[in-house]
């Protein structure tokens, strides 16, 4: 009897062993990844020149892909690997930990050392020691953010990039000052490239990030200029009669698409920068404007009111019939392709008087509104496609804001007051 029982037990055991339990996880959750960035160690008594941890924390938070732990919630503040009490972090469900040190190595020279650690397996996912002068400390922090971002999301980080934008300042006596600026992607380190008493519009980065094209009214009429960022050298490339607006670089950087009305009607033209010769792309009697090149350079999208309202169309970069892309709402304008070419961001209005940032999936034609504001303009993708920067109207003017490409995280960028317009997100700084 016992033997039989044993056999039965054995058999049941075998049955279980053969049918080893395997739990299928066929779904997960979409959400920001938890991360704790511990304040970096600092080897001097003086105030540290840059709060590395805070800079990294803000970068990661702004991306929408991370929820950094609040500083006051940190259970411990280790600066060295062997100081980490892994159990504490695990109990908090905090899988990612960033620790580091800022060390002054000489007059104005520093060394930043950091580690990204998985608290559940105790493994170091990344660890670097980066020497940097004082002027490069913030940028070093962004580079660390990029490394963390890429290690944990698989997507290249775009924190160590820059944005270009226009500010407008009231100068009194009905005078205004227009500035073209570039800044770090988080809005820090703004640098003025150009100031003018006449309007400056539509800054556009060259693909290599070395030049910016823009529209200036300094000669009372609109003209398109291209300026070298480093040297400040600038060239007027289009100053035709009528409208000269909305410059857009071809992916290879040899051409500019633009809106010209030199032949009577605003149409899309393509200019070869080497020769300044133009070639008309659209011939419609309606207004065609705000062109943008597809990532592979084969197509050009633009805004046109040829259908009665402003909508987005796409045509081959060598001309031909244009295809309408947007059908939702009474207004869709200012298109920008996502870096992977699969989506588009634009300003959209759904018959409600509000102009908001929308995200259009090109394969399905389905679009979604990302923002909850009233008057947005000039959306622009980060080079990794994770975020969209745009300008939004405030009571006193307008400011820059960013939204994650999935619309979950909204952030206003710290800028000086007044009016901030037409942000353009620059390319990756290094290849």
């Amino acid at each position, binding site marked *: 009897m016992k033997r039989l029982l044993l056999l039965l037990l054995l058999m049941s055991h075998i049955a*279980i062993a053969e049918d080893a339990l395997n739990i299928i996880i*066929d779904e*997960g959750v979409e959400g920001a990844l938890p991360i704790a960035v511990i304040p970096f160690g600092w080897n001097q008594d003086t105030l540290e020149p840059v709060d590395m941890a805070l800079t990294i924390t803000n970068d990661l938070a702004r991306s929408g892909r991370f929820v950094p732990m609040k500083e006051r919630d940190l259970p411990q503040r280790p600066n060295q690997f062997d100081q980490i009490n892994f159990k504490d972090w695990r109990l908090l469900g905090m899988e990612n930990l960033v620790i580091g040190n800022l060390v002054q190595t000489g007059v104005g020279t520093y060394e930043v050392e950091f580690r990204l650690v998985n608290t559940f397996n105790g493994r170091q996912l990344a660890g670097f020691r980066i020497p940097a002068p004082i002027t490069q400390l913030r940028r070093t922090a962004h580079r660390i953010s990029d490394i963390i971002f890429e290690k944990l999301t698989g997507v290249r980080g775009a924190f160590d990039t820059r944005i270009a934008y226009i500010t407008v300042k009231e100068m009194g006596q009905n005078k205004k000052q227009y500035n073209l600026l570039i800044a770090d992607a988080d809005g820090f380190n703004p640098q003025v490239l150009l100031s003018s008493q006449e309007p400056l519009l539509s800054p556009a980065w060259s693909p290599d990030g070395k030049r910016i094209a823009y529209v200036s009214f300094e000669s009372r009429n609109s003209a398109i200029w291209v300026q070298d960022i480093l040297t400040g050298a600038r060239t007027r490339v289009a100053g035709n009669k009528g409208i000269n607006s909305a410059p857009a670089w071809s992916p290879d950087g040899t051409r500019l698409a633009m809106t010209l009305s030199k032949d009577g009607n605003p149409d899309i033209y393509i200019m070869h920068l080497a020769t300044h010769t133009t070639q008309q792309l659209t011939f419609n009697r309606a207004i065609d404007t705000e062109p943008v090149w597809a990532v592979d350079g084969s197509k050009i999208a633009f805004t046109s009111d040829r259908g009665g309202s402003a909508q987005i169309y796409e045509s081959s970069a060598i001309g031909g019939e244009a295809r309408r892309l947007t059908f939702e709402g009474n207004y869709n304008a200012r298109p920008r392709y996502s870096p992977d070419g699969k989506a588009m961001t634009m300003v959209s209005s759904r018959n409600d008087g509000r102009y908001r940032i929308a995200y259009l999936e090109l394969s399905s034609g389905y679009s979604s509104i990302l923002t909850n504001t009233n008057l947005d303009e000039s959306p622009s993708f980060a080079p990794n496609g994770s975020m969209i920067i745009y300008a939004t109207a405030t009571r006193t003017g307008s400011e820059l804001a960013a939204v994650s490409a999935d619309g979950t995280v909204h952030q206003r960028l710290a800028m000086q007051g007044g009016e901030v317009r037409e942000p353009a997100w620059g390319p990756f700084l290094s290849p």
Partner: protein
Amino acid sequence: MQRSGTSFKSVFLSILLHLGAAALLIVSIDMNTRTLRQSHPEVVQAVIVDSKEVEKELQKLQEIDKQKQKKQEEAEQKLKEAEQQLAAAKQQRKQEEIKVTEAKKKQELEQKKREEEQNKLADIKKQQEEVKKKQLTEEAERKREEQDAAKQKQLAEKQKADAAAQAQLDQQFKNNFSAEIGRRVSNNFNISGLPPGLKCVISVRLIPGGEILNVSIKQSSGNEIFDNRALVAVQKTSPLPVPLDTATFERLGLRQFSFTFIP
């Protein structure tokens, strides 16, 4: 001629013999051998006398002899008859005896036969009884065995049923725990930004109570981030919701199992 001197003796003897024979007949004694002996005449020396005389004498003698002979013959005849009678009687008796014997024999034979038959019958009966007894015993044995087997079977079936019920219960348990574990792990599995179409298998070892002892990648997706997210999803769920009863925990084989991440 030689007998003349002894004729008297012979007659006497003859009578005696006859008497004896009669006696024999009367008493009817069973005799297996005949004791009667033939009498031999004595030898006499002859003296020659006057021939006439002799002749007369001779004639006389002859006459006497003839008479004697006749008498003897008669006696002999009588004896013979008696003998014959005796023999017949004897024969008859013998026949009767034979008859009796035969009858007896027959009877005995029959008796024997009967007895044999009876014996045989008894044997058969005995045999039959033995067979029957044996059958009965066997039957009983068989019945007992059947009962035992039935009991055994019943027990086995009960055990089987119990085991099946337990297995079913276990399966249900397993399903419930799997579902709950799966739900919790899924909730900790962050798939944001992960490329589609990836799959990894993670092996996990538990101690009773659900605390994770060890997790390892059994089959990598080829994407380090995907694998890490899956690992963290499992580790974050520790302790896994397993039966608190250690025996059940062991029976369900929860000490070691795997997760397949295929979002």
